[in-house]
Every structure is written in C-alpha cells, then in structure tokens.
C-alpha cells in the first residue's frame, strides 16, 4: 500500500513537472474548448450538447497518448528495469501509474467542465452520474492505453499506434464527426469503436436521462476496458530490450480487439441506432434550415419578400455551409449574443407572407382558411420525424422507463404551467410549442422525440380543433411574433431554461407547428 501511494504520488509529481505532459493533458483540452467556443460564439451552438465529445477527446488523448508515452519512455530508459530489482509487484506499479492517470484525466475533465460552465454552459443534468460515466470512459481508454504501451517498442511507436486508433475514432467513430452525417457503412463501423459509447454515456448524463439511459454504452466501455487491462497485464514487459514481436503474450492483443468486435456485434444484433445525433464538427450553427421560410410555399408570382428563400428542401442535419436563412443573414455583427428576451427584436419575417401579391394573406389568425394552409405550407418538405431536427417518435414507440416517468411528470406539470394559462390562445399555443422546441434545440436524447406528442395532446385538450388549426398556421407563418418568456419557465417541467439562440428555437417551434398542423388536418399521416 505504501509502495502504491508512493508510486502514485511520484507519478503525479513528475507529471506536474513535465511541461509536454501538461501541455497534452490540460492545455489541449482547454484550447479545444475555447476554440469551439470562439468558432461558434455568435452562432449559439449549445456547448452543453457537445460536452460528451469534448470530454471524450480529452480522455482519449490522455489515455491513448499520455499513459503509454509515460510508460514506454520510462521503460526505454530503464526505470522499469530498476523497479524490477525491488520486491514490489508488477500490479502495484501498474496500479500506481494507472490511478495517477485516472486522476489526471478527472482533473482535466473537471477543468473542461468548469471552463465550459464559465462560458455559459448550464450545469450538467446528472453530475454524479457524469462522474461515473467519465470513470467508465477513462477505464475503457486506459485499458486501450495499456495495450498500446505494451505493443509499442518505443515512443514514436506510441504516437503511430495511438494515431491509428485516435483518428479513425474521431472521424468515423462518432466522436468528432456526427454519426448522422456519415455513410451507412461508417455508422455501422462506429459501433465497433469505443469512442461512440463514450460520447453516448457522457452526453446522456449532461443533457439526457442519465446513466440509466446509456446502459449499453456503459457495458460496452467496461467490457472494452476490462479486456484492455487484462491484455495489457498479460503482455507486460519490463525491459525495452524485449521487443513486442518477441513477447510471449502478444496474442493477448486479440483479446483486447475481441472486446471491440463483441461490442460491435452486440450493438448490430440489437440494431442500435446511433443515439448521438450531431457532433463537434458538423452540429454547427447552420442547422437552421428549419427556419420557417423554407416551409412556406413560394407564392405563384415571384416572391418579393425581402429575404432570400432557401430553395433546398429541408435537409436533415444541415451542413454548415448551407446559407442561413433570412433572419440570420443581416446580423453577422459580433455583438449579438441574443438573450432570450431580446430575440423578438430580430428582423420581421412575417413581412414575407404579407408581401405576397396576388393572394391576400389572412389579417388575423381568426381569418385563416384551409385555402391559406394549402397555399402557404408544404407538408412534404418537412424534416423527417426520425431526423435530428424536430424529431417526433413514431406512434407505436414506447419511451424507456426513465423517459416515460419524466414525460408523466411533464404532463402533470403542464396542466398547472403558468405560461399555459395566458389569455391569448395564440400565445398559449406558442408557449406550449416552446416546450417541444427547447428539448429539440438542446438535443435532449430520447426526451426530445416524445415531448412533441405530449404537447400535442395538451393543446388539443386546451383549444378547440378549428381554432387550433388556425393558430398553428398563424404560428408557423409568424414564428417571430409574440413573446418567448415561456422558455425561462421550463424548469417546473423538468427541462433546462431556454437556449440563448431564440431564432433557432423559434425556427424549431414553427416546424413543430407545421408538423402538428399536418397531423390535426390529416395532411400528415404518421407512420
């Protein structure tokens, strides 16, 4: 025990004295985070949505490069050989090194979280479970790091091997590039990489329903970590002179890899859809294709509305380069961290529907007719319900236990919800729709797909059908009207308070308005 504590203490102290190691462990993750924030500062990409990926990259870097680099360089210079002259056991030394690395990872993770919160990220939904998830992630990657340390004969080999795992995991493993934007084969392949499970488990504890909702990911991480640690122990080498190719236990690499394959096959057999919708590189601002303009039918004569209309059918997770819609174009000025309450001051999109010559748009929601709906709305161009933007769970699908419980609470809370009692029916419906739009913006896994139907039930109970049709049309075509104070009153419903980007939120709200309008009028028949 004394040996373990001493070894642990020395490992930590030496780490603190090693500038390169500090750079890798702490500066890189910080730069990563700050870069993310700087890049998307004006786009209001919710950082909270990407914490899983950032933490995964941190853990991966520290465990895949930091740990084996330390171990291999110590072995190369003969430190481990010198240790071997003492009666201390291999297990003690390795445990000291591994625990030290785990603590370093936890510190780096905490640093990243604190910094993220300083940049405006809300407190993670399940902090303690996040800690547990991070521990599982660290365990999985440390196992991986041990295998690399035993396979690599020297430090350059660590870099080479590490990159072989790091880069594919980032690109096609669901860590840095959104799974949804990858081709099908890559999505399937990602099931065989631990990175994806790491992101899922961590993100579930930040914006999702906690670890309970990420059981498979936790299992996958623990399995991969255990196999890595076992293989690392079996292949342990004291001496740099002993090459990996001459190590008797080298076949144990197969055991470590077998865990990846087993997890992948298991995932495939369960046909697990990637749970992580958008990720670092691509879940960028442009996801705004959903802003209402696209849904509004171009009127027969050339549209004279001020803003350019996005001619594309609503793409799924829109890549960043798609021109943002109207409401974004005129406002690239950096000084605009729109807070929820300021949002309505944005340009006035309603002008677009009023300026259509030839047909006279309704002057008030009470005047809306079916003809208006037929003319102005395109139900076939909506983002798919199974997509990332404005998802709605299919009718038959049951939420998991946690989600179901949360939804029940929400149903109950909605009956007493203050913004659901305001006198103006349009504002009331608008408020209810915010309840669906906010989880979508935050991409709260599971929940975001089920809330819309809860809201749908609620507004159908609340507003007569004919009025509801008119109101939904009105909201779809006037997304920037009314106030949005309701987004700051979501806590009683078990949701985070509103996202900073109200344009995006209002955009989602109008898409949901169309989707629900389609359902109530029978224009959309859900599967």
């Amino acid at each position: 025990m004394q040996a373990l504590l001493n070894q642990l203490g020395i490992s930590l102290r030496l780490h603190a004295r090693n500038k390169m190691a500090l750079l890798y462990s702490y500066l890189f993750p910080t730069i990563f985070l700050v870069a993310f924030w700087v890049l998307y500062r004006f786009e209001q990409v919710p950082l909270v949505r990407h914490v899983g990926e950032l933490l995964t990259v941190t853990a991966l870097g520290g465990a895949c490069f930091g740990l084996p680099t330390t171990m291999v360089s110590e072995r190369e210079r003969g430190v481990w050989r010198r240790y071997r002259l003492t009666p201390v056991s291999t297990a003690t030394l390795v445990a000291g090194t591994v625990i030290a690395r785990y603590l370093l990872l936890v510190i780096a993770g905490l640093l990243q979280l604190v910094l993220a919160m300083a940049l405006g990220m809300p407190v993670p939904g399940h902090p303690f479970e996040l800690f547990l998830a991070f521990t599982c992630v660290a365990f999985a990657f440390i196992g991986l790091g041990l295998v690399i340390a035993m396979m690599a004969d020297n430090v350059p080999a660590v870099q080479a091997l590490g990159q072989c795992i790091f880069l594919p995991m980032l690109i096609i493993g669901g860590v840095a590039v959104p799974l949804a934007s990858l081709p099908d084969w890559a999505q399937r392949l990602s099931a065989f990489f631990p990175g994806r499970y790491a992101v899922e488990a961590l993100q579930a504890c930040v914006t999702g329903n906690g670890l309970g909702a990420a059981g498979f990911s936790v299992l996958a991480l623990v399995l991969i970590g255990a196999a890595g640690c076992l293989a690392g122990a079996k292949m342990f080498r004291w001496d740099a002179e002993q090459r990996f190719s001459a190590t008797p236990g080298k076949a144990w690499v197969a055991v470590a890899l077998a865990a990846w394959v087993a997890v992948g096959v298991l995932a495939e057999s369960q046909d697990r859809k990637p749970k992580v919708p958008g990720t670092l590189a691509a879940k960028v601002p442009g996801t705004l294709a959903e802003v209402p303009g696209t849904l509004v039918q171009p009127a027969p004569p050339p549209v004279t509305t001020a803003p350019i209309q996005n001619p594309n059918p609503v793409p799924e997770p829109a890549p960043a380069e798609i021109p943002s819609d109207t409401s974004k174009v005129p406002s690239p000025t950096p000084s605009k961290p729109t807070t929820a309450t300021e949002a309505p001051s944005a340009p006035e999109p309603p002008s677009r529907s009023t300026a259509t010559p030839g047909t006279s748009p309704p002057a008030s929601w009470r005047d809306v007719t079916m003809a208006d709906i037929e003319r102005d709305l395109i139900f076939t161009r909506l983002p798919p319900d199974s997509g990332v933007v404005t998802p709605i769970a299919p009718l038959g699908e049951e939420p998991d236990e946690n989600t179901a419980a949360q939804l029940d609470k929400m149903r109950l809370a909605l009956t007493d919800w203050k913004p659901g009692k305001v006198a103006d029916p349009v504002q009331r419906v608008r408020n209810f729709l915010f309840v669906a739009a906010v989880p979508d913006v935050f991409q709260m896994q599971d929940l975001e797909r089920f809330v819309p139907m809860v809201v749908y039930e609620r507004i159908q109970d609340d507003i007569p059908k004919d009025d509801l049709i008119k109101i939904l049309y009105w909201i779809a075509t006037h997304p920037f009207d009314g106030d949005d104070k309701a987004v700051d009153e979501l806590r009683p419903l078990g949701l985070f308070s509103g996202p900073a980007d109200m344009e995006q939120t209002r955009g989602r709200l109008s898409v949901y308005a169309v989707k629900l309008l389609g359902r109530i009028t029978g224009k959309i028949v859900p599967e």
Partner: protein
Amino acid sequence: MYVVSGFSRTCQNEPMPPKVIVQNLKKRYDGVEAARGVSFEIRDGEIFGLIGPNGAGKTTTVECVIGLREPDEGVIEVCGIDARRRPREVKERIGAALQTTALQDKITPREALTLFGAFYRQKAEPAALLERFALLEKADAPFDTLSGGQRQRLALALAFVNKPELVFLDEPTAGLDPLSRRELHGEIAKMKDDGHTVLFTTHYLIEAEALCDRIAIIDRGCIVATGTPRELIARSSAATTVYLATVQRLEREWLEQIPGVEGLSCEGTSARFRSASVRTTVAEVMKQLEIRGIEIAELRVSKATLEDVFLEITGREG
C-alpha cells in the same frame, strides 16, 4: 600456533553458509548460450569479483541471480533462499546497481530514495544515504542535472536503500572518470568493512585485483578459474618475468640450458624470460654470468599480474 589458528578459522567458517550458491546456471537467448553451466559460491562478508571479457556472460549471470532474468536451468540460492522459487524474498535482502541506472528526468535523489525505500519492508533513511554517498547538495535537484559520477552514486545509494545483506554491482565503474572511480573503490572497500557481502563485475583487472577477496574468471559462459587474486597468479604458468641487460653480448645457447627458464627471448645484450621458480633460476643465471665474465647492466624481476593470468586463461584482452 599455526595449526591452532588454522583450526579456529575452519571452525568460524563452517557454520556460516555461503551467501550465494550458483550451480550449473544455464541461459540461452536467440540461439546464443550466454551461460553454459556457471557455478560459484560467495562467502559471507567477502568482496567477490566476477571478471571476464565482454560477452563472456557476466551480466547474464548477475541478472539471473538478482531476478532480472529467468534462467533456463540451474540452482540459485541467495541468503539461503531459493531465488528461482522465491525471488521476492531474495529481492528484500539484496541491493543492486546496474551498469546504467536511469531514472525519470525530473525525479530528485531524495524522492527516488523515498520511493524505492517504500518498496521494501526494511528501509534506510534517505537523508543518511544522501550523506553517505555525498549527494546532499544535489538532494533536491532533478535527475537530469546530475553528473555521471553523481548518477552512479545515486545508483549505489539506491542499492543500499533496503539495508541489504548482499550487494550486486554490475560494472559500477564503467564510464567513470579516474577520480570518481577511485571514490567508488573507497565505497566498495567500506561496504566490506560494514559487513556487507559484495559481488561486482568489472573488466578493469587492476580494480579486481585491488578490491576483491576472491575472483571468478568467466569466459564463453563458463567459470574457468576461481580463487583469491594471489592464488590465481601463483597457479598461473605466467609466473614471473625476468628482464636482463648486460654489458657484453649474451648467447642464447647457454641461457636456454638453465633450469626453469621458459619463453626466452634474447637479442644482443638483453634477454627476457619467465620462470616459475625465480630464486633458483636467477641464482643459476648469476653464477653463469660470473663464470663467463659478463657484467650486469640491469636485472629486473617482475611479478605476474592478474592481467597476465587473465590473458593466459582467456587468450583475450579484458
């Protein structure tokens, strides 16, 4: 008196079992037999030198004994413990300094001694070791700022961190400057005075001759000679060399006839030969010179050194 003292010595030695027993040690790697049946014993309290040319199997032998390598065959007993079956017990009682001891760049001598001390049941005070090995002023300096001599002294200090009964030093003086080497010789002599048993390997034969109580010469994976330095020299046919220079010319014929003269080389007024019985041979040479009226310019008798023995046995330079 002689008989009594001899007897009492035997009595003292008998109950003390050897500190190290190695029998028929064999180790082969990559098709090369590094040790081909090495056997030797180290007695309690002695300084034992293992010498041999590079690649003779010195390091392999030592590494097997201290538990760094698993031998293919053979018996190794250290401090009465079967080292192959209970290597950890053995490691508790021995200290070792390898040819090169490299530690982490940023670890300090004090930290290293504390860390390594924590690995043992019995431990020496780091401060005492720092003082003993003249490392106090560098006690808190990172390892990468230490000189070669300081690193070597730290390696020795680490070998003593568990108050060992037995110390293994593998080429401790290799690569050191003459001053550091002399300091180290002093340290090794002190170890013996403190009652430690020491095994060290070297290829500096003068060092071995000066420091060791007993020496084993290893060559091509086998021990080829064991004994005190004096015994080895006496046993050697290299014997003593005689150099002779005269005023008048010397003739090879009569010199060759003198009993005991071996390996004669003779040219003009000088000659050189070896003899196993110098006194009688030289007396005979003097007599013959007297008879022939040859005056001596110089006569020098030079004792064989360990190096001569070594060269004779191994046929190579150390």
